[in-house]
């Protein structure tokens, strides 16, 4: 059934950054969204980017084998939502896919919700897959923490954010990335005034929360101060029957809540 040539899928992509080097790249969740788009609509699925994004980053999406990326030109300080609303109103679309959060900037993850609100389309968050589309409704697999899944049914058109549990994005290749077209159009560029007043600084490391002991007595304080810190070598059971050893393990599994 996939890819469906009549299905109109648009993937909203942004330029990501590598968490260690900060170098521009395709954003991981957006790339998974592109992968899902490729699965559903093949190379006819559209790529849309708003802004003046870094070209190497955007070309990595093209390197996944798509012929064109529509870049709605707007300044780096512009708000992406009006431009996207305009684009989606003028280009018929059944499914809008995007990542949960951007890898750069404010990364509020609000774009899909604002689009949903302004277009009146339902928003489904954190999907892992789209299983089928029947009678104008899509069966969407939503990702829950720890590998769990939930099945949702949503009418088209809708907006979905793609979770890290979705299939991994294919490798991007140099050849298609070089050949792909970056089609530029001009869109509504409204400067995001509010953000201009904010300050962006390199992330300050957050202090790890310590296990604060509110000791009521000297004995408690003493205990807290002298207790063996965790991770300094664990308990080793050498003797005893297999049964006893298994019980010790089982106890830990139960206390950690992984065996219910």
């Amino acid at each position: 059934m996939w890819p469906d040539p009549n299905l109109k899928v648009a993937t909203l992509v942004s330029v990501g950054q590598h968490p260690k080097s900060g170098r521009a790249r395709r954003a991981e969740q957006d790339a998974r969204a592109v992968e899902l788009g490729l699965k559903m609509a093949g190379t006819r699925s559209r790529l849309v980017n708003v802004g003046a994004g870094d070209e190497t980053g955007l070309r990595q999406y093209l390197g996944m084998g798509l012929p064109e990326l529509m870049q709605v030109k707007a300044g780096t300080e512009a708000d992406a939502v009006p431009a996207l609303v305009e684009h989606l109103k003028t280009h018929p679309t059944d499914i809008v896919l995007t990542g949960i959060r951007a890898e750069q900037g404010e990364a509020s993850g609000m774009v899909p919700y604002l689009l949903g609100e302004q277009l009146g389309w339902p928003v489904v968050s954190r999907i892992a897959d789209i299983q089928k589309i029947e009678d104008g409704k899509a069966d969407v697999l939503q990702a829950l923490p720890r590998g769990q899944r939930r099945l949702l049914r949503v009418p088209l058109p809708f907006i979905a954010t793609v979770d890290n549990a979705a299939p991994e994005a294919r490798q991007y290749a140099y050849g298609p990335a070089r050949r792909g077209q970056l089609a530029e159009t001009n869109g509504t560029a409204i400067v995001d005034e509010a953000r201009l007043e904010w300050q962006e600084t390199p992330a300050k490391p957050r202090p790890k929360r310590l296990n604060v002991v509110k000791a009521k007595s000297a004995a408690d304080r003493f205990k807290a101060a002298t207790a063996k810190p965790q991770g300094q070598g664990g308990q080793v059971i050498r003797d005893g029957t297999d049964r006893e050893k298994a019980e010790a393990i089982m106890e830990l599994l139960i206390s950690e809540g992984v065996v219910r």
Partner: protein
Amino acid sequence: MLLDWLLPTLLIAALALLAIGAIRRINLWRAGQPEAVKLIAGLMAMPRRYLVDLHHVVERDKVMSNTHVATAGGFVLSMLLIIPVYLFGLESRWLTIPLLIATAAMFTGAIFVYRRRRNPPARLSKGPWMRLPKNLLAFSGSFFLLTLLTSGLLPENFLGVWGGWVLTAILLVGIASGLSELLFGMGWGGPMKHAFAGALHLAFHRRPERFGGGRSTGLKPVNLDGALGVAEPKDFKWNQLLGFDACVQCGRCEAVCPAFAAGQPLNPKKLIQDMVVGLAGGTDANYAGSPYPGTEVGKAHGNPHQPIVDGLVNADTLWSCTTCRACVEECPMMIEHVDAIVDMRRHITLERGETPNKGAEVLDNLIATDNPGGYDPGSRMNWAADLDLPLMADKQEAEVLFWVSDGCFDMRSQRILRAFVSILKAANVDFAVLGNEECDSGDVARRLGDDATFQSLAKHNIATLSQYRFKRIVTTDPHAFHVINNEYGDFGGHYEVLHHSTFINELVEQGRIQLDRFKGGTVTYHDPCYLGRYNGEYESPRALLKALGIEVSEMERSGYRSRCCGGGGGAPITDIPGEHRIADMRVDDARQVDAETIAVACQQCTAMLEGVVEPRPEIRDLAELVADGLVVEAAEPGPAKTRPAVEEVH
């Protein structure tokens, strides 16, 4: 006599067919991409390349070498004489006696060929190759007899009329079959094709530097604005196609290929034959040698304009190669298997984006962080936080630039790096490192076919290196050594690069470090491919071990025949399953000589060999062995320096 007109006709027909076939074959090669070669100089150099360079390789098997000299030499000489004698009817003892000698030599050689074919080793191809010795015998025997009869060396009417007719008939059959194999078959894809294609291959070899004792192992760069790698046979350079046709299917490559031995789906010989199928069109049904392990023969088909991968060759075959160059080293025809494999990988990676397994992730990391593990590029010096290494950025100038390589992120390799630093310090070498300015050398990216990433890394590193003054680069990583030494030149980076084994050996020879005797047990030495076969450094590591008082007990496969550890060419990344692991086989080699320690000179080899389940010999890098054996004179130089001062006071 019947033969008087029939023989010249046969000869002319065979020669004409040879010419037609040869032109046809040449046109097949010309379907490939243009590559400039020196036509005249190449042809002029060909006899020497054949007689000297090729025979260097063939001579590793003495019997076969002599057999080939007799057969091939006899054939060439007899053909040169047969044409004047039987085509132009020149009668002269000056021609016939040498012709007799030539055919006799060829006959003798052919007997040895025949004997070998009676019980051929597995690596040899069967099929048409099995009939070759018979036709060689027929050709040489017939012409010998014919010449003997017509030369007037025998008394008149030696055989009588009937005997003459019978003999004539036999001779005709022999001559016809011999000519059809040796001339017709040469032009039309028979086993003798190797002589014709091989001679031209030697003349127009893509790496002429290899002849005359030279070495050329660096990969050729991709023009990133042109075709990216090889998708179809026609995308190879024309002289690469020619090279494939030169294959004699002797299977020496197969016998040394670590991937083949491990049961991975690669057989270098079959690969080259598949390329021949690709350039000529057809299927591999006629292939009569060992298959790719686990793959059936007869299913592959191709033509010059059909994609190679999935059709002619499975991608897994290409990704099984460790680029150890053992096949290239062994090939008597000097065929460049590794170049071809990397060319095809380039297409898979750069155009299809289908680098298998961890390949995509590694390339992604290299692009985003300049190291294959995706570590913070600003943490390159964390391993040496306590070592206080001088930075090039601070010093600007140093005698030695220590190229740390990506081993800095790996906990095991860090031990090697630290050992080497202790040696540098003990010898008071004026050195510095690039620190966070260093990037991956690009070795893995290039072997995985991503020449775009390789080139950007190489250019970046060259730009960094150009800022500083240093005499030489020393590295503990043979892969970085090879790439900087042999592959950066194409991008304007020319340096004197030394591997740490060479450099430490120099220090020992100059007496800058003193070594204690090694107190362990039996030691063997594993030659890293990228140090040995790629760069010809076999002696320094051994000299160094000798300086430690170690008598290396050599494994059966050592030196230029060393077996790969399985870690090259991105093989651990692409990780194509086989029946065995290459590293296990290598450790078995060491066990056979009862080694307690395997001395290595490469962090990749260390990682691979240490991945073998214990109990196994201990794996130690040369730097670690030397660092352990360093006679620390810290106490002596101190007083030595202060003593004169004390004396002055007196």
